[in-house]
C-alpha cells in the first residue's frame, strides 16, 4: 500500500515538474512549485521523516511561495521568449540530459536498499544517538536533541545564515524606502 502511495506521489511530482517546464506564465509556475513542495512533504511523511516533512511544508510550500509571488509582482509574470531559441539544435542538450540521467540511475544501483539497518549511514553516529540520547538529553524527539545539542554548532551556523540572508535583502532592496523617508 505504501509503495502504491509513494509511486502515485512520485508520478504527480514528475507531472508537476513537466508542467513547470512547459507553462510560460510565472504566476502559474510559482503555484506549481508550491504543489511540488507539498508533494515532496507528503513523500517525506510516508518515509517517517516528520520533521523534514514539516519543514518542507512550512518553508517550501508556505514561505517560499509567498516570497516568489512577491518577486513575480516586482518582475511581471510573463516570460520573454527568445524567438531564435526554437531554431537551435536541440539534440545536444537532449543527449546531455539523457547521459546525466543514466549516470544518476547507474549511481543508484550502489545505494543500499531503503530503510536497510545495515546501511553505512545507519552505522556511523546514529547508533550512539539512539542508545545514549535518552540518558544524555532525555527528550523524546531525537531529531531535536541531535539538531539543538549534538549538532548545536551547525544549527548556530544555520541561524547565522538566515540572519545574513535577512541583512543581505535589507541592504540590497531596503534602500529605496530610506530615500523615500528622507524626502518626506
Amino acid at each position: 500500500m505504501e509503495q502504491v502511495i509513494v509511486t502515485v506521489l512520485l508520478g504527480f511530482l514528475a507531472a508537476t515538474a513537466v508542467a513547470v517546464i512547459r507553462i510560460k506564465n510565472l504566476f502559474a509556475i510559482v503555484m506549481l512549485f508550491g504543489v511540488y513542495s507539498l508533494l515532496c512533504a507528503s513523500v517525506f511523511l510516508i518515509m517517517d521523516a516528520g520533521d523534514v516533512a514539516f519543514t518542507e511544508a512550512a518553508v517550501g510550500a508556505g514561505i517560499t511561495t509567498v516570497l516568489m509571488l512577491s518577486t513575480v509582482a516586482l518582475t511581471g509574470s510573463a516570460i520573454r521568449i527568445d524567438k531564435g531559441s526554437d531554431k537551435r539544435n536541440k539534440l545536444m542538450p537532449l543527449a546531455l540530459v539523457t547521459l546525466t540521467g543514466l549516470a544518476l540511475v547507474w549511481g543508484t544501483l550502489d545505494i543500499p536498499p531503503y530503510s536497510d539497518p545495515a546501511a553505512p549511514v545507519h552505522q556511523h553516529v546514529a547508533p550512539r544517538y539512539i542508545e545514549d540520547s535518552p540518558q544524555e538529553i532525555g527528550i523524546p524527539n531525537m531529531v531535536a536533541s541531535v539538531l539543538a545539542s549534538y549538532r548545536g554548532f551547525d544549527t548556530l551556523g544555520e541561524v547565522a545564515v538566515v540572519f545574513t540572508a535577512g541583512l543581505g535583502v535589507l541592504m540590497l532592496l531596503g534602500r529605496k524606502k530610506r530615500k523615500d523617508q528622507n524626502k518626506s
Partner: protein
Amino acid sequence: MTRDPVLKITAKFLIPLIMLFALYVQFHGEYSPGGGFQAGVIFASAIILYGLVFGVEAASAVLPMSFLIRQAAAGVLLYGGVGVVSMLLGGQFLNYNLLAADPVSGQHLGIILVELGVGLTVTAVMVIIFFVFADRNRP
C-alpha cells in the same frame, strides 16, 4: 490589501490559531516534530497573511522594521550567548550540561533557549524579507 469581507473575516479567525500553533510547535519541539525553524516560519506566515489581507502598513504598525532587525539579531545573540554562558560555567561552547544542577535538565534548558533563539531570528528574517519585497511593489 483586500476589500473582500470573506477574506478579512477568515484571516481574522485564522491568524490567532496560526500563531498559537506556531507557539505549540516552538515549545513542544522536544516531544513532537518541529522546533524553532518551523515555528518561526509558521509565526511569520501569520504576520504575512495579516499583511496580505489588511495591508503592509497595518502589519508594519504591529511589527516595525526597527523592532524586527533587533529581534533577528537578538535570536542569534541568544543562541551564541547560551554557548558563551556554558563556556563561562566551565564547559565547552554549546555544551549545555552545566547550565543547570544536573546534566539532563541543563540539556533541556539549553535546547529550549537555543530553539527560542532560532524561532526569534527565523520569524524576524522572514517578515523582514516580506516587508522589503512588499515595499518595493508600492510606487
